[in-house]
């Protein structure tokens, strides 16, 4: 084993830091990401590509909003709710933001307990995260229903620039789809964690490979990314 380590420079303990480290890692043989598994690296690269997709959506929204001569509907009023006789601007969006941030918090804890090999706590925290995510999607469905009832369509709305509906449905719809898939992903992995797959190194159904608790962190990366995208949507679409 010691020989393997010696003949494998990628795993040698002393790695360069800083700019020299970047040059050394990228110029080295076989792999650039030295202490990151292929699964984690691929999730990061997928998230990078997803970043570009959401960037394009937000950019097209920016272009539509900047180039229209018709006033843009005031999101503060469009997303206001009347709760108990009080007129609350943007209240639903604020609650949705807090729900998603809470889910990110429980996810981070799940990753932590995963690396401690605490099977039950990890699974429970992942399911709590999934429940927050499902709550978020439910509130989004409520929001869509309300706006559609008020006459918002991709080609027009009662308050101003017709592009508002197209931007809204496209951006929040794509984000909601991501949350939905995240919930499914979380439940699938939570089931594996709870069953003890990563303690007994049970082989995966599709891959026949042994998994480990790192999949919790990879799931977490996806989930935090969904929260991250919401931070940008909240700022640019709802608050701007």
């Amino acid at each position, binding site marked *: 084993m010691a020989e393997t380590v010696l003949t494998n420079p990628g795993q040698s303990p002393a790695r360069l830091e800083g700019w020299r480290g970047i040059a050394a890692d990228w110029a080295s043989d076989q792999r650039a990401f030295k*202490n990151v598994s292929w699964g984690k690296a691929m999730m990061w690269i997928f998230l990078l590509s997803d*970043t570009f997709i959401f*960037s394009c959506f937000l950019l097209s929204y920016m272009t539509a909003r900047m180039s229209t001569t018709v006033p843009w509907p005031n999101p503060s009023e469009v997303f206001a709710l009347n709760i108990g006789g009080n007129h609350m601007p943007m209240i639903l969006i604020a609650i949705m933001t*807090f729900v998603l941030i809470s889910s*990110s918090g429980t996810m981070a804890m799940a990753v932590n307990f995963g690396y401690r090999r605490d099977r039950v706590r990890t699974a429970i925290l992942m399911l709590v995260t999934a429940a927050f995510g499902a709550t978020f999607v439910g509130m989004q469905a409520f929001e869509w229903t309300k706006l559609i009832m008020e006459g918002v369509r991709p080609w027009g709305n009662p308050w101003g620039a017709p592009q508002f509906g197209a931007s809204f449905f496209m951006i929040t719809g794509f984000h909601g789809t991501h949350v939905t898939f995240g919930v499914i992903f979380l439940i699938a992995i939570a089931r594996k964690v709870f069953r003890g797959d990563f303690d007994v190194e049970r082989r995966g159904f599709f891959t*026949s*490979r042994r998994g480990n608790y790192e999949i919790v962190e990879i799931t977490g990366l996806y989930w935090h990314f969904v929260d991250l995208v919401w931070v940008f949507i909240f700022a640019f679409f709802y*608050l701007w």
Partner: protein
Amino acid sequence: MANTAVDMEERLHAPAHGAVATEAVHAEGQQHPIKLYLVVWGWLFVLSTFSYLVDYFGLHGYLRWSLILLFMMLKAGLIVAVFMHMAWERLALTYAILLPPVVVFVFVAIMALESEYTHFLRVLFFATPS
């Protein structure tokens, strides 16, 4: 039979990639005190409240926009750095993932110029004469 093949394959690759790599991750890294996550969680709540208050108090113009951007960047930074563990990754990965999105700003600049131009033409040719 299939399992034997997978076993063989795993034995071939494990020392180089799988096993040692995951060991390294476990040993080097993403094991941080729970308290850190709770503190970041708290800050995310506070920053979200602040950005909500920007709308609640109806701030306008450059003050509104700069505050929105400030709180947005702080939240995004906390999520990526701590929750997604980017702060502890090697720089080779950090730069590979975080630099490409910066190029999006070029796209933003192009589209901002383009929409100014479109807006100008619309005002010039399509605006209803008052």
